[in-house]
């Protein structure tokens, strides 16, 4: 078995030990989703759409955000990796015959996958069976579902590549607090977690388009709800692929540079 599958399995086993955390997460996200929907529904008032974004699409968008929250947010911290750098246990990581960037990347992506598996299904199930207008709609079409799935996974890859920079910055700052806060506030806003991107004013929407953050959550959810036509969806997916290339290359280079000047903490 390849090491990354073993790592994923290990993460899953580890994640399953924290069932209470998963249940708490499901509850929080469910209520957060419900409250957001109520607030935005009030803003919609009698209007059935804003900027071409219908109320049903908005509701679906919010439910998907909550269900796949661990795929989008940047504040999800992997304590183990931070500790590794802070305490100097990174010494062991570097004794392995693996590319460190790749090793960490797989660690991060598998911890996100393992917590998503525990959380997304209950939220999606409850959301589907919500009363009438507040329910999560089914995907617009089979093609939408397929494109949604593809862009969701690419979005996860982008998000983990962005979060790698937080971990690399800890080599310099030795404390994750600052960069974590900075990245998560910026990321949260520009990926549409606070205000769904279709609801933003045009100038802001244009600005958001040139950043990588919206490609983690906004794009897949709008593909799902049919807010984006197929040709635009394909174009968005192409941009996702470009971002992946850029972020991975930059991340690898930054990591290489940090490791060269590495100081192992604690003797």
């Amino acid at each position, binding site marked *: *078995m*390849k*090491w990354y*599958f*073993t*790592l994923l399995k*290990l993460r899953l*086993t*580890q994640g399953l*030990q924290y069932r209470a955390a998963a249940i708490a997460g499901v509850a929080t996200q469910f209520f957060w989703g419900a409250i957001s929907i109520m607030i935005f529904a009030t803003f919609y008032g009698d209007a059935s759409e804003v900027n071409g974004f219908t109320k049903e699409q908005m509701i679906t968008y919010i439910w998907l955000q909550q269900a796949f929250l661990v795929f989008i947010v940047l504040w999800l911290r992997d304590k183990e990796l931070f500790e590794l750098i802070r*305490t*100097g*246990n*990174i*010494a*062991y990581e*570097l*004794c*392995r*015959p*693996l*590319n460190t960037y790749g090793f960490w990347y797989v660690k991060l992506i598998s911890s996100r996958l393992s917590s998503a598996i525990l959380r997304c299904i209950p939220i999606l199930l409850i959301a589907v069976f919500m009363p009438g207008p507040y329910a999560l709609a089914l995907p617009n079409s089979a093609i939408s579902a397929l494109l949604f799935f593809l862009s969701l996974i690419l979005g996860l890859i982008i998000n983990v590549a962005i979060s790698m920079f937080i971990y690399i910055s800890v080599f310099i700052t030795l404390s994750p607090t600052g960069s974590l806060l900075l990245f998560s506030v910026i990321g949260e806003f520009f990926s549409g977690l606070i205000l769904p991107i279709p609801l933003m004013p045009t100038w802001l929407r244009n600005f958001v388009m040139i950043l990588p953050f919206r490609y983690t959550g906004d794009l897949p959810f709008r593909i799902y709800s049919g807010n984006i036509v197929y040709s635009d969806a394909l174009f968005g997916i192409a941009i996702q692929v470009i971002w992946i290339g850029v972020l991975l290359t930059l991340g690898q280079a930054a990591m290489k540079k940090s490791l*060269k000047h*590495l*100081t*192992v903490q*604690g*003797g």
Partner: protein
Amino acid sequence: MIEIENLSKAFQVAKRKKGMFSSFISREHETVYALSDLSFRMKKGEIVGYIGPNGAGKSTTIKIMSGILVPSSGSCEIMGLTPWQSRIEHVRNIGVVFGQRTQLWWDVPVIDSFELLKDIYKLSDHQYKRSLDQLVTYLDLSPLLHKPVRQLSLGQRMRCEIAAALLHEPSILFLDEPTIGLDAVSKIAVRKFIKKINEERGVTVILTTHDMSDIEALANRLILIGKGKKLYDGDLKNLKESYVKSKRVIVDYETSSQDFSLNGCQIISQTSERAVIDVNLSENSVPVLIQHLTSSFNILDIAVETQPIEEVIVNMYKEFSI
């Protein structure tokens, strides 16, 4: 097998000034040398004890040799590879244990960590089984394999750590304070195992420690460093011969009030029944002292103590002022 030539490592350390804001505004840096001009060689199958006081540069050397740190200057070749240049190839040849850290996954059973290592090092099922079986037998791991690491005692965990470092059957083993914090029984078990693995697999071992009995039990060669410089390189016997300068004689005799003096002998304490005497070996010898004692006292018992190796080392530290 290991060739280290003029290795130096400098760190930039930010000086923290007193006060709240001064270090916020500007920082001064100073250069600290963890290693300067270190050279030594090792042959295959050797066990070398690498000692020195805290902060001498022992761990830095180990980290450079494992490809974790990049030195400021100098060269290091291990099995034909420069560790920091061909890190990935190099680390397949080495196993490392940092006594103060853990490489096992805290919340999962030990065996899961081992299986991950199996995949990371791309071991075949056959190779893994052979290696694991051997390690499980030698280190008596079978009751521990299915326990989560957090439930293990320090001694048990250290045995698992050592096994983890040797799963991929490396030809070189770096042990950075493997016996730190262990009780006497676990220490002996670890030592026995290192000896065994050295004899059977022909593993070359570098061992850093503060426990001289580790060195006495294992190493035929000793390298002493202090402030990043090599101070002594040779075998333990030689070290004792050249640095043990006095022996202590404790003699019990029938009550006597006679005085005693002899060239090169210093009386530490004397009562009417017992005397403690230090013999300076460059000026006199133990047999001469005993002869002298027997002629003046009715001796009941005599004990001769050699300076323990710890004291020898402490004296060396003093001598080199480290």
